[in-house]
């Protein structure tokens, strides 16, 4: 399966989903005018990935700001990835990074942690 790489813009985050290593990274800010248009290929890639996931999947999120519709899609990504947990010998971990001065983003990570049933780590981005 091919990796999904989307370059970062002023309004959209960098997406670097590597199927071989199982490391899926989202970096930057997510305030697209049309979130559906931006996240549809991302969700489609995840649909394909969960059919044959890597032994260990780590999703690393380094978001500095995102709008409400993006928050829905981020939740959607986590929910889709939950399916990996039900597959034997497959592990998944979410690493939620936040700047040490960004308390809001840390709290947001906690909210996602509470609502998803995935192993979730909230990490300070030094």
């Amino acid at each position: 399966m091919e990796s999904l790489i989307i370059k970062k813009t002023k309004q959209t985050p960098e997406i670097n989903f590597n199927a071989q290593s199982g490391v899926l990274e989202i970096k930057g800010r997510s305030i697209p005018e049309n979130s559906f248009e931006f996240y549809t290929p991302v969700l489609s890639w995840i649909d394909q990935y969960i059919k044959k996931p890597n032994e260990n999947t780590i999703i690393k999120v380094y978001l500095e700001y995102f709008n409400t519709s993006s928050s829905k899609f981020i939740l959607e990504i986590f929910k889709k990835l939950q399916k990996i947990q039900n597959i034997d010998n497959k592990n998944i971990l979410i690493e939620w990074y936040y700047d040490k001065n960004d308390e809001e983003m840390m709290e947001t990570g906690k909210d996602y942690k509470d609502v998803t049933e995935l192993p979730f780590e909230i990490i300070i981005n030094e």
Partner: protein
Amino acid sequence: MSEINIYQRELDNLEQSKLFLKKRNLTSSEYRIELEKLIENYEDIVSQSKVITKISDRLQKKLDQTNEKLYNRNIQLQDTIDELTKTKISRKATTIVFIVAIILFLILESIIEPYIEKFTGFYTALFIKLGIALLIKPAEMLLEHSLLKKARKEKLIVTET
């Protein structure tokens, strides 16, 4: 369009339940299964709404704080620019007044003083020189004030356009 699409999965679930309701001759266990599915979807929507509302409020707060910081920085920046303009104008006024004073002194010394000394005496010339020296500071302040007024007026015109 985007708002509809982001809830596509939920809308599909709703449509399925509506279609189910239109069916006839269903058993109670089939109704139960459908109801369970509907409850499950509803629970999912409630939990999503809770988290999205919470996150949205927090992000709004973050945005407000950033705006406030930006506003304060703008004020600081404006103060610094004003201070710089004032210093620049003050230096300009000092230079102008100093040059004018030197010119006046030279004129007085070389052209006017011999006549004054001839007709009125040494002390009158000295008092005139003293007068020029004492007028330097008020003249500088007056010029500075006038130049500042002009600069503010120009800035106002630039801002308006």
